[in-house]
């Protein structure tokens, strides 16, 4: 199928932030060297943090289990190189506070744990595949870090018919998924085959934004023989948000307050699919990932294959250091990423990008009154009225705010991005959401 002949699909709402990807989109993935120490947090996923199963002095290999999953919505954590555990203590986490972590001093050998063995997915049952995915600590690598095995365990009454692979990468600046699709096409497709087997379905669609024609072309060429579809999508943020992606590809709307499985869909990131291939075929857990280190504040933007636990500072050094004084350090993209206290925190499983802005790259901060232009409503991919929710939130009128469905907000940030009065709309909505959730819990 020729790429040009494809109809571009999309959703209603959204906007076009500056793309910022040109600095790193053409840079092939490089392997980041071993740092002096690796700080591996036990909480790298949505759900209960893992429980440390090593102590100071324990010698570990690459891929050795160092934290056990605690509960169903949880995943294990593994050593990302061989060496010695030198501390089990709270360290500064990308979330902005000190959280329990295992600190490893690498021995330089970087040798894999010999107990890890691969298997041919053809010979394994769906349950065996799923337990390998859980044991490998696979989480959603687009940034949400939802445990993959949970998404693959729909209750029997939910009939799944479509697997969607998210190769949209709609966040400006980020190019990690783009590079993975170009350079690791085979691993992604192998992961998709495994996912289809686990779910017991045939239909798999890879959604890719039209600003990556080379990735669309390569994926489409190699996916055709495996009966995997590639769908080109209109370039529009937040095309890669799960609900918007499902809407664009299937035309189905995930009912408010439910998961995609409600409409028969499971969505995984393309990077997650590649990690699943390694988990099954090689028996290797998720101990490294590709990260775009970019933005005007770094000298040489790159896409690096990084061991989990490598400090952000070390990553910046690999990119020839900082360009000027940093004013904002962002883990993730500029629309939804998290501002960091410093370059001390480690890269974790959900780290898709490290973005550095200088002062002149940041928007002005003072806000004016709402002029009721309605742009926030026009761009909201959920079709909420952000300015109304925000106005109630500013007055702490949470019952009134709740009438406007703030809990459906996906926090994509379109409203704040577009607001001419530079009001912190999504920030006010988050505030309302937190207050409404807190109230629900006490009822």
């Amino acid at each position, binding site marked *: 199928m020729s790429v040009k002949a494809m109809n571009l699909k999309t959703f209603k709402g959204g906007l076009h932030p500056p793309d910022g990807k040109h600095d790193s989109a053409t840079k092939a993935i490089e392997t980041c060297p071993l740092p002096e120490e690796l700080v591996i947090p036990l909480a790298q996923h949505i759900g209960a943090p893992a429980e440390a199963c090593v102590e100071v002095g324990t010698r570990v290999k690459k891929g050795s289990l160092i934290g056990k999953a605690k509960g169903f919505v949880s995943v294990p954590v593994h050593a990302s190189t061989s060496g010695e555990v030198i501390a089990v203590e709270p360290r500064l986490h990308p979330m*902005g506070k000190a959280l329990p972590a295992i600190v490893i001093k690498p021995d330089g050998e970087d040798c894999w744990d010999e107990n890890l063995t691969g298997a041919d997915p053809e010979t394994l049952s769906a349950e065996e595949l799923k337990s390998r995915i859980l044991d490998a600590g696979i989480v959603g690598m687009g940034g949400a870090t939802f445990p993959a095995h949970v998404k693959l365990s729909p209750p029997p009454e939910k009939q799944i018919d479509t697997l969607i692979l998210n190769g949209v990468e709609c966040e400006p600046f980020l190019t990690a998924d783009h590079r993975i699709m170009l350079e690791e096409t085979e691993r992604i497709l192998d992961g998709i085959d495994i996912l289809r087997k686990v779910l017991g379905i045939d239909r798999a669609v890879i959604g890719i934004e039209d600003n990556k024609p080379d990735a669309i072309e390569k994926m489409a060429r190699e996916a055709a023989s495996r009966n995997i579809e590639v769908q080109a999508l209109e370039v529009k943020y937040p095309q890669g948000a799960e609900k918007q992606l499902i809407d664009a590809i299937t035309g189905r709307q995930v009912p408010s307050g439910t998961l995609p499985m409600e409409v028969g869909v499971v969505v995984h990131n393309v990077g997650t699919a590649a990690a699943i291939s390694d988990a099954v075929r090689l028996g290797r857990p998720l101990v490294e990932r590709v990260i775009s280190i970019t933005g005007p504040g770094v000298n040489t933007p790159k896409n690096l294959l990084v061991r989990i636990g490598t400090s952000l500072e070390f990553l910046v050094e690999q990119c020839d250091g900082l360009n000027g004084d940093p004013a904002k350090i*962002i883990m993730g993209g500029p629309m939804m990423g998290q501002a960091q206290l410093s370059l001390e925190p480690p890269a974790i499983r959900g780290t898709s990008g490290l*973005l550095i802005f200088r002062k002149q790259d940041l928007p002005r901060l003072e806000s004016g009154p*709402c002029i009721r*232009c309605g742009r926030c*409503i026009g761009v909201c991919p959920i079709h909420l009225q952000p300015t109304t929710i925000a106005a109630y939130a500013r007055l702490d009128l949470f019952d009134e705010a709740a009438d406007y469905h703030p809990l459906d907000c996906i926090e994509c940030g379109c409203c704040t991005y577009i607001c001419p009065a530079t009001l912190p709309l999504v920030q006010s909505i988050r505030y309302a959401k937190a207050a409404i959730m807190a109230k629900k819990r006490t009822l």
Partner: protein
Amino acid sequence: MENQLYLSSSPHIHSGETTDKVMRKVIYALLPACAVAIYFFGLPALMVLLLCTLGCVAAEGISCKLQGRNMTLGDGSAALTGILLGLNLPPSSPWWLALFGAAIAILIGKQVYGGLGYNPFNPALVARVVLLISFPVQMTSWTSPAPLGSDLDAVTSATPLGAMKTAVMLTGKLPELAHSGFSQYLIGNMAGSLGEVSAIALLLGGGYLLWKRIISWHIPVAFIGSVLIIGGIFWAVSPEKYPNPLFHLLTGGLLLGALFMATDMVTSPVTDKGMLIFGFGCGLLTVLIRLFGGYPEGVSFAILLMNAATPLIDRFCRPKIYGQVEAKV
């Protein structure tokens, strides 16, 4: 390094399109209409525009100072209100009328409600209506155009809509000017307020706003469309008594109102559906006032009445939220 980092939450970038830039673009869009007004009505037109603009800016500045509020002159909204007010006044307006109107627009039309964003009514229209009711003689003293460089003198003349109302009231029939001379109306060679005369200049500015996406098509299309359709129905029923819809379109303040006044973001609905209802209401009221009301022109009153209905329209036109559906599978 650490203590110089910003930690605000996402998003970390902004479109760069801020309120002052929006206001500035609307002002640019009004420049062609201002130029045509100055061409046709000469120095008095320039004086009216300058007095209104400076009056509004001064009123805003003094008001902010007295109330101890942040100075809001930088957002450009006061200057915009001044230009719009000037375009709504007769070219022969005395200086005190322009200044008084400017004070009304900013103080009564805007600042008493809390300033930009909180006023329910379009400030320039509030001022126009206050002036119309308080100073009917000055507000309805129209002059025929005397283009710059021509040796014509400005003489007193009725607006086309005014002449039509008088003729219909006296004779029960439309005057000749309601049937012909449309090309002159198109370029603005007729008596009227500064900004209502040139259809071409207004369309140029309106097109620029649509192109720059400052306004959406919903209000202008619904407003003008409903005037054409409703006016057209009356015309079809009785062409002797009711004017051609093109006459409605090209005379009076319809284009100025539909493109620049009704589209005022603060005082119009925020959703597409709401804007269509708002525009339709403006069009219906305009035709009814023009054909059956006491005043020859109805655009200002129509927009103000619909401004009052805006909160209600917004309440009933909430967008359909993603996910408010039953599961399909």
